[in-house]
């Protein structure tokens, strides 16, 4: 348990992704089987117990420590599990420190009545970090800033294989993943990937660059709209239904409406969208669904989900991935036409004769769903379905971002490489209040889009023009006559009740720093409101 606890402890303090990968790889390389397998399951969300309720944990602690002393401690620490981990009186030598596999085995077989005794024995034997890790494991949700995707990337780096290979075999494997580790340590063959309804690693597109248009012929490519939902893979094979995100996470629980609609036999690649009267709704509507792990009937009715299909990987038992796109497309069209379900439709191809014509379409999308598309997708007619992000067969050609001039209002220090810099910026636009005065209202936060040199200048500006501090946040001088204008680029704009300004941006970033522009000339909230999706 010690090494696992130590790993969780360090991950929880480490903001940088690469450093997290290093920590994970080090752990995977040094922890024995089956401990590392259970740890991996815990990190990828495949191991949840919810065996101990906070109320019980608190009671157990108060039985060991005077309740007033406990209350004073809790008041100081502010987190129940952490308080218990810290105040639990050590009983050195009372019990042997449990190993992670022991804990997992015991919890899987223990009755509800036995759990409290087990827990107390373990808490007696562990140190403070061990107790903290155990309580996190038992109360469900590690929350140490590691996604399942990151854990798989660490696993791939540990074994020296592409992450796609991990994703492909993942759903056929069970914790503690003995076969997986044997393969990654080259002690055995790659585990079978023949499981039904398993995840197939997805093919991704490169962003198209200016020079590419001269290099590639327009006639070699099909174009379709780039839908603004989430990429999914829907599988139904041998009675097994699965819905995966593009990284292979199983997201079925959040979309029972889609699960019920998988009435075909095969594997579809497509975009998950909210459909309203047969039309795609903006991303903000989908966000309502993504926020809930298990939706209620009201939410399902208000935001019905569907799939806009753009590729067919399996038809029945036939693997289509080695067929060229034009053939897969023909099969997909027939497949969707044969399906009677309203929740699955086809992403239409957008005919064009030249790159110029396509550029016009991108700049002026026709009425209807293309209006809210993120741009265009280009797929080579002869391309096979190749996992990863190969250069050439598929391109994305995003719509130009929207731009707004905003004024820097607050700044916060960053993490990792930026820990000494004010690198997270909150910006606002002008709003006229009831007295006719111009006030800045915050509309978003950006922490990338600038160079290291620009960061230094921004940091200096923040330090030189701080007017107030609230904990880690600095308030920066910003008024009609003085302030720093930032040109903000963003992808979409939604109504939001959570933000004071009433709007929320997608992917805001700093496009340019307008040292030259007077703050009074920054945009008005009304300008932004006209850009609402």
């Amino acid at each position, binding site marked *: 348990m010690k090494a696992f606890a130590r790993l969780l402890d*360090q991950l929880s303090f480490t*903001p940088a992704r690469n450093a997290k990968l290093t920590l994970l790889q080090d752990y995977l390389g040094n922890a024995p089987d089956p401990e590392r397998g259970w740890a991996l399951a815990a990190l990828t969300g495949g191991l949840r117990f919810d065996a101990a309720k906070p109320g019980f944990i608190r009671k157990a602690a108060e039985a060991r420590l005077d309740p007033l002393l406990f209350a004073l*401690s809790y008041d100081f620490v502010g987190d129940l599990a952490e308080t218990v981990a810290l105040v639990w009186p050590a009983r050195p030598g009372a019990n042997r420190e449990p190993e992670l596999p022991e804990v997992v085995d015991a919890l899987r077989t223990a009755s509800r009545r036995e759990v409290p005794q087990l827990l107390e024995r373990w808490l007696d034997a562990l140190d*403070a970090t061990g107790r903290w890790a155990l309580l996190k494991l038992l109360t469900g949700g590690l929350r140490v800033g590691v996604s399942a995707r990151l854990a798989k990337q660490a696993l791939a780096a540990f074994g020296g294989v592409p992450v796609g290979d991990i994703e492909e075999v993942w759903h056929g494997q069970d914790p503690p993943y003995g076969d997986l580790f044997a393969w990654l340590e080259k002690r055995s063959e790659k585990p079978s990937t023949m499981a039904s309804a398993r995840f197939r690693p997805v093919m991704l597109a490169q962003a198209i660059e200016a020079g590419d248009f001269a290099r590639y012929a327009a006639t070699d490519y099909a174009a379709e709209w780039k839908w603004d939902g989430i990429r999914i893979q829907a599988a139904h094979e041998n009675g097994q239904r699965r819905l995966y995100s593009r990284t292979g996470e199983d997201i079925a629980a959040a979309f029972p409406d889609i699960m019920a609609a998988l009435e075909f036999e095969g594997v579809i690649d497509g975009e998950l969208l909210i459909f309203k009267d047969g039309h795609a709704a903006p991303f903000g509507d989908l966000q309502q669904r993504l926020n809930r792990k298990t939706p209620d009937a009201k939410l399902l009715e208000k935001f019905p989900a569907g799939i806009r299909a753009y590729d067919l990987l399996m038809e029945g038992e036939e693997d289509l991935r080695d067929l060229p796109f034009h053939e897969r497309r023909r099969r997909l069209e027939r497949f969707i036409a044969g399906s009677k379900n309203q929740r699955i439709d086809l992403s239409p191809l957008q005919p064009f004769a030249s790159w110029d014509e396509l550029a016009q379409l991108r700049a002026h999308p026709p009425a209807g769903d293309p209006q809210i598309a993120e741009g265009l997708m280009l797929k080579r007619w002869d391309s096979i379905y190749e996992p990863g992000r190969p250069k050439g067969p598929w391109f994305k050609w995003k719509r130009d971002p929207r731009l707004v001039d905003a004024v820097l209002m607050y700044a916060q220090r960053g993490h990792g490489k930026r820990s*000494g810099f004010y690198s997270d910026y909150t910006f606002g636009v002008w709003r006229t209040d009831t007295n006719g005065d111009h006030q800045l209202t915050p509309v978003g936060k950006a922490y990338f889009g600038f160079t290291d040199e620009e960061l230094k200048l921004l940091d200096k500006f923040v330090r030189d023009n701080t007017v107030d501090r609230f904990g880690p946040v600095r308030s920066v001088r910003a008024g009609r006559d003085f302030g720093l204008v930032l040109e903000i680029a963003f992808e979409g704009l939604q109504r939001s009740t959570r933000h004071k300004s009433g709007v929320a941006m997608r992917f805001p970033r700093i496009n340019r720093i307008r040292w030259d522009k007077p703050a009074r000339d920054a945009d008005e909230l009304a300008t932004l409101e006209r850009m609402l999706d």
Partner: protein
Amino acid sequence: MAGFRQLLRNTPQGLYCPPGDFHIDPVQPVDHAVITHGHSDHARSGHGTVLATPETLAIMAARYGEDFAASTQAARYGEKIARGGVSVTLAPAGHVLGSAQAVLRWKDITVVVSGDYKRRRDPTCPPFEPVPCNLFVSEATFGLPVFRFPDAADEVAKLLKSVALFPERTHLVGAYALGKAQRIIALLRESGYAKTLYMHGAMAGMNALYQAHGVELGPLAPATDAERNALPGEIVIAPPSAIADKWARRFADPIPAFASGWMMVRARARQRHVELPLVISDHADWDELVLTAEELKPEELWITHGNEEALLRWATLNNIAATALEIAGYEDEAE
């Protein structure tokens, strides 16, 4: 309690001994002061006379200049000094170099003022010496049951493990310039780390003073001579305020570490953007505070700066008469 107050009482300047006419660690200038140790919230300049250990006097001279008091008197550990009818002895407190408890004997009463203390081994100063007493005046910086410090050697091992795992990055360890910094250096040396350790400019004076008093620190070099983006794979020790600020930018993708008892609580580490918290403290933790009180069994326990409330509660539960003194001016965060 009234009996002890003839010998020791709380005043706006700090603890005062009327029959001996001196203050202990006064927070404002007074005529006669007894100073337990060199940290600036306990050892201020501008007093008339100062009685302290030779090491503490040297630390004060290094910090404030030779004329920090009108006159000084050095008392070695165990040496009896008469002040009015009161006998004053300084006993090791195990906190930092020169740190002492003030032991006051008057008529048949013994009072011990702990100053700041710890019970754990520290290679840079002699260990705390328990002195049986009628009244014990205890610090309570970490007077909450959440503070149960791990073994400092394990924390240093954690630092070295991280250095091995991230050889391309600089480990920047925040540590108080007097005491904590030298203890970490000594602990690193004990664990076999022989490489040069790099120091923020603010560390130089105290390091030299410790070395002059016979504390081995091994090879040290200034960190500030370094080029930009320098010292990958090295350990740099700096005051806590420097680790997350402009000064830190010169190093190679630094990992901010902080050696302090406060690092026991995760939110404290996060607030300071610490990525490698090291729970190493020069104060007594909860267990040490409680065990010391149990060991000394004083008739009364007075609790000075820190988290008094929990220790008061503990004393009540254990039938020890206890009072919290509210002494303004000691820094809660002083480590």
